[in-house]
Structure formats: structure tokens, C-alpha cells
């Protein structure tokens, strides 16, 4: 099992102060430049510590958001490419259908891969529905645009004999020529996250690494769909390292402190649920059938709430810390407890080769560092023992 440390780089000091949404709508005046400076640098320090602890690194991006100040995966990774030594650098990911210029995505990824000496793991994500009004890209036919941008990236990565062109309804280029080209040839490993079995099958067919985010024990169907299609397509079992899971994590030496930390990490989940409902799901972002089903509920969708627990009960609204833990969305406790929770989850999922460890939220600097240090120095060695069978069910 490999481990990636992740933080959203949130501007959390005003989460309680701001009434209502923390994304897309609140003005920037509450973000004090000096505080943002301190918080962003703190995140770089945490990733540097993760590197020293032998862990890997994941970054993401959002826009117009108090929950995530990273506005470009590759901006953050270009710093980390220089200040870390060994960690794999996972962008998960670049929101491809929100980016009007995929050629630029290819250039920046190749830059980070070269700067880091070939440590980039390139995650390609659709993009958040609530960020379509920010990018101004049309919500309708978003997956067509996603896959076309993906094809264009691969063409940009693999064309080395001079400029190539691309002319389609979505993209126009006359001079695609990425210099420097990728350090890893033909291109860095590609990852894609998903919440659906259909997408999981498509990712498996292409042999990419698949991740699910905070979907807990409900992820089993998606993992199974991936493994089944991978085996059918490639004639061998999907290696566990092709499967990744992102969970929130809080570790402390004693259980009481760990639970306090867990609540502060999980504050991220509550913060994201405050996204303006009108912008979460612009028409065309989801299918007509899904939107018809959602209309009686005003089109509202939820990422962290309304899940069913493994014992069949519905979560409270909002969920409790215990429910987040039972659901497999939060791993929280002493190093022994967290290792045991992750081991149980991975086994139930049939073997998760990559565990993405999300901290941050409203954790203060010192407790975040301590939680990360305990994970890297005490949880990781316990989990390294875990035998992952590639043929696991």
C-alpha cells in the first residue's frame, strides 16, 4: 500500500464567520493576504514533512473558494517538485472540462514532470459542476469535451517531431509542440477519479489508475466494476496499485484528542456542503434522467451527507464523527486504531493499493503536523505489513 498526503489548502479561519456558502459566492475581502500567505506556506511545509516521512503527495485545485486556495495543481506541484526529494507528486486533478486550453495543461504537466525528475502522477478529473459558471465552459456535453481534451493531451505528450495541429468543434490548435517534453515517456501515469461504475469500466479499459473520494464502504461496486473490466480487457487481474481511495484521517496518541482532531478534519465535509445549491448542478452537468430524478428536491446533490452506513442505517443530517468513521469516510483514532480501520476498509474493498490521506480542514498547524507525523511514522509501518492480493475479490 502506498500513501499520499493531501490537504485542500483551505482558508479555514473564516469558515465559522462566513454565513452560507464558502465557494463561488463569498467575496475575497475576508481572506487576509498575510494569513493566506502563512497558510499556503504551512501546506508546503506539511508536504515536505510527508516527503521526509516516506509518503507521497497529492494536490488538487478549486476556484473562488475558501475551502481550497490552490487554483492550479501544477502551480502547487511546481513548488513541490523543487522542495521535495522522493515523493510521487499526484495532481488529482486537473479539471479537464473546465479548462479552455488543454495544450496549456500538457505544457504545465510536462514542466512539473521534468522539474521533478519524473515524479508526476497526472490525475485528470471532469471538474466540479459549481465551477462551470467560473470557467464559463458549457455544462452540456461535458464528458465529450473531457475525452477530447484527454485525447489532445496524449497527442501533445507523444508528438516529438515538430508542431501538430488539432481542429474540432471544441478545440483549435495550429502549433502543438510541448517543450520540454515529459521526463517520463511517453507520459506520466494517468489517474482518474469516479463515483460511477460506468466510468470505472471506462477507466479500467484504458488501464489508468482509478480513485474514489470519501465514498466509504459504498465504493465496493465501483472497485468491483473496475477490476472486472480490467481483467476482461487486459487478461490479467488489476494490480492493487491501480486502485486508490481518498479518506479523511485524524491521528493522535490518545483517542480523545484524535476525535477532536477528527471533528476538525471533518469540518471540511460540512464546509463543502454549503456550496450554493443553484450552482452545484448546472443544467447539463448531470444526465437528463438524473436531473429529472433530482427536480423534486430542487436539483440538490450532496457529496458527504445522506449516505447509508454499512449496517443499513441512514446517516444523521449532518453526520456525526462516529458515522463518518463507520462509513469509512474518516479514519480516526490512535495509530493502532487508524491502521486497523484502514486495513479493514482495504480488505472489504478487495485491496486498495493507494490510500490518499486527507487532513487539513480546520486543524491548526501543530496538531496537523502531529497527526501527519504519527500517520507517517506509526500508521504506515503497521499497514506496510498488509498483504494485498492482486486477485482479491
Amino acid at each position, binding site marked *: 500500500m502506498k500513501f499520499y498526503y493531501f490537504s485542500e489548502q483551505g482558508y479555514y479561519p473564516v469558515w465559522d464567520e462566513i454565513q452560507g456558502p464558502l465557494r463561488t459566492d463569498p467575496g475575497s475581502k475576508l481572506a487576509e493576504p498575510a494569513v493566506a500567505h502563512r497558510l499556503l506556506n504551512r501546506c508546503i511545509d506539511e508536504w515536505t514533512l510527508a516527503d521526509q516521512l516516506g509518503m507521497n503527495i497529492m494536490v488538487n485545485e478549486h476556484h473562488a473558494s475558501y475551502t481550497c486556495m490552490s487554483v492550479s495543481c501544477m502551480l502547487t506541484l511546481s513548488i513541490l517538485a523543487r522542495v521535495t526529494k522522493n515523493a510521487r507528486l499526484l495532481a488529482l486533478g486537473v479539471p479537464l472540462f473546465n479548462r479552455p486550453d488543454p495544450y496549456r495543461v500538457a505544457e504545465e504537466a510536462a514542466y512539473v514532470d521534468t522539474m521533478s525528475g519524473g515524479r508526476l502522477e497526472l490525475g485528470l478529473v471532469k471538474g466540479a459542476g459549481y465551477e462551470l459558471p467560473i470557467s464559463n465552459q458549457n455544462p*452540456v456535453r461535458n464528458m465529450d469535451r473531457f475525452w477530447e481534451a484527454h485525447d489532445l493531451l496524449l497527442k501533445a505528450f507523444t508528438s516529438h517531431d515538430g508542431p501538430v495541429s488539432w481542429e474540432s468543434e471544441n478545440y483549435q490548435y495550429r502549433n502543438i509542440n510541448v517543450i520540454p517534453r515529459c521526463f517520463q515517456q511517453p507520459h506520466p501515469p494517468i489517474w482518474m477519479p469516479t463515483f460511477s461504475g460506468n466510468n470505472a469500466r471506462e477507466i479500467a479499459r484504458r488501464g489508468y489508475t482509478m480513485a474514489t473520494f470519501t465514498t466509504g464502504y459504498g465504493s465496493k461496486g465501483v472497485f468491483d466494476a473496475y477490476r472486472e473490466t480490467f481483467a476482461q480487457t487486459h487478461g490479467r487481474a488489476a494490480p492493487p496499485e491501480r486502485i486508490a481511495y481518498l479518506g479523511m484521517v485524524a491521528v493522535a496518541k490518545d483517542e480523545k484528542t484524535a476525535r477532536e482532531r477528527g471533528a476538525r478534519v471533518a469540518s471540511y465535509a460540512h464546509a463543502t456542503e454549503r456550496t450554493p445549491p443553484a450552482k452545484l448542478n448546472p*443544467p447539463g452537468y448531470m444526465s437528463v434522467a438524473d436531473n429529472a430524478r433530482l427536480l423534486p428536491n430542487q*436539483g440538490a446533490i450532496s457529496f458527504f451527507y445522506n449516505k447509508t452506513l454499512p449496517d443499513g442505517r441512514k446517516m444523521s443530517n449532518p453526520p456525526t464523527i462516529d458515522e463518518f468513521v463507520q462509513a469509512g469516510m474518516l479514519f480516526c483514532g490512535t495509530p493502532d486504531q487508524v491502521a486497523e480501520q484502514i486495513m479493514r476498509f482495504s480488505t472489504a474493498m478487495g485491496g486498495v493499493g493507494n490510500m490518499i490521506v486527507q487532513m487539513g480542514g480546520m486543524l491548526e498547524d501543530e496538531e496537523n503536523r502531529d497527526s501527519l507525523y504519527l500517520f507517517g511514522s506509526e500508521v504506515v509501518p503497521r499497514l506496510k505489513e498488509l498483504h494485498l492480493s492482486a486477485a482479491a475479490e
Partner: protein
Amino acid sequence: MADKIQIAGLSVEMVRKGSGPALLFLHSGDGVEAAQPAIDLLSKSFDVIAPSHPGFGGTDLPANFSTIDDLAYFYLDLLDELDLTDVVLCGASFGGWLAMEMAIKSTARLSRLVLADAVGVKFGSRDTRDIADLFALTPAEIPPLLFHDVARFAVDYTKVPEPQLARIARNREAFTLFSWSPTLYDPKLRQRLHRVDLPTLVLWGANDRVVNLDYGRALAGTLPSASLEVIPSCGHLPHVEQVATFADHVVRFAGAATPSRKGIRA
């Protein structure tokens, strides 16, 4: 009831009702359903032809349709295939935009133009939105923007049957496809409106909160031969909110003797 006919290779859902001069009704972004009372009234004076646009209702959406131009050329093909002449072209909101996009291309089969609270043109400065963003709203937030008498038009989606929900969702998606960005307008349309050599009636809801009356005045002032009529106690959709007044205006305007079109562009 709507029938299915083949037009330009597409299966098109179309209401055709009444007799008299041909009137092509182009529905607003919420689909043809809400226009049924207006269609019924107009059918007493006209041969009303009211299709669902490609992507809306039960009409096909070809994969290569993505712009308002695609719809405008489709409707010019429809006029040809149905061999309609001296057509009164009547469009509401998004349908008004579509009507103007047709008329700048060809008015050969048209006699008159009626625009009700039409979107589609940019008059204001680059940092002022002329037209409200109808795509950043929850379903419950839409009626307060569309109507003067909001309470009359609130929808309880928990009581709407599933096939109707699917139509609403499909209409919303198609509306978004054609008008997401630039939001509900075509940057080139204003400079081309001089080509609309048709007597034009611009109808405007006095309390339109999507595109206000100043915009309606600017539109009427830009079209070569347009008069403006303001409908009181009315929001963005006169054909829905003030059906009788809307139909009266259309009948009075289009029922008059057809004037010579010569000289309009001079």
C-alpha cells in the same frame, strides 16, 4: 396535441392548429408546453405551427447542433420543407432571439415579425449584464425572475409526473446548450439587425426582470421597422402570464393589411 413529423432529417414534435395566415411560433427556453393557451387563442386567427426546437420536448437533437445558428438554419429549412409563405414569425424570449437569427439570414418566406421580451442582443457595457443569468438558479428561484405574479406560477415538482419531469430536465439542458455563453445573446446579432426588413412588433412585459423595458426600447429602436407595446402587470413571458393581451396584440398587428416591405431597409 403534438404530432411527429420529419424535417431536415430530424424527427420533430410539432403542434399545428387553426386556419388562416401561417404563424410560426418559436417557444421560450422552458419549452412549448407553457405556450399551449397562447397557441389555442392564436389558432382562432392563424394556422399556428409550433414545433419543439431541436433538443427540446420530443424533438431530436443532432450531435452537431450546438449554436443558435444551427436552430435558425433548421427553421429556415422547416419553412422550405413545409412550403410556407407570408409567415408571421412570432418568438418569445429565447424564441424571439431565434426569430431574429432567422430573419437576418432570410426573410423570403416571412411577412411580419413579433418579438415578445426577446433576448439575444447585447446593448450594455462589458461589465454590465443585460440579461439575467437563468442558469445559476435553483428551480424554485426561476419563477420570481420570470413572472410578475409569482404565486400563480410556482411549481411543486414533487407533484409533477415523471415523464413531465424528464421533459423539463431535457428542456433545461437544451436551453443551456444553446445559450450558456455568451449568456443568452449573440455578439454579432446587433450589427446584423438592419437586415430584418419586416414590419415588427416588439411586445414587452412592464415588469420583466430577465431583460428590462429599457432593453425592449433599445431593441425596438434598433430594428428597422419596429413598434413597441408594453404589457402591464406582466413579467418576462407575456404569452404565458397575459395570454389574452398577448394574443390580441398579435392578431391586431398581423391581421392588418400586409404593407409593402419595400423601403424598410432604405
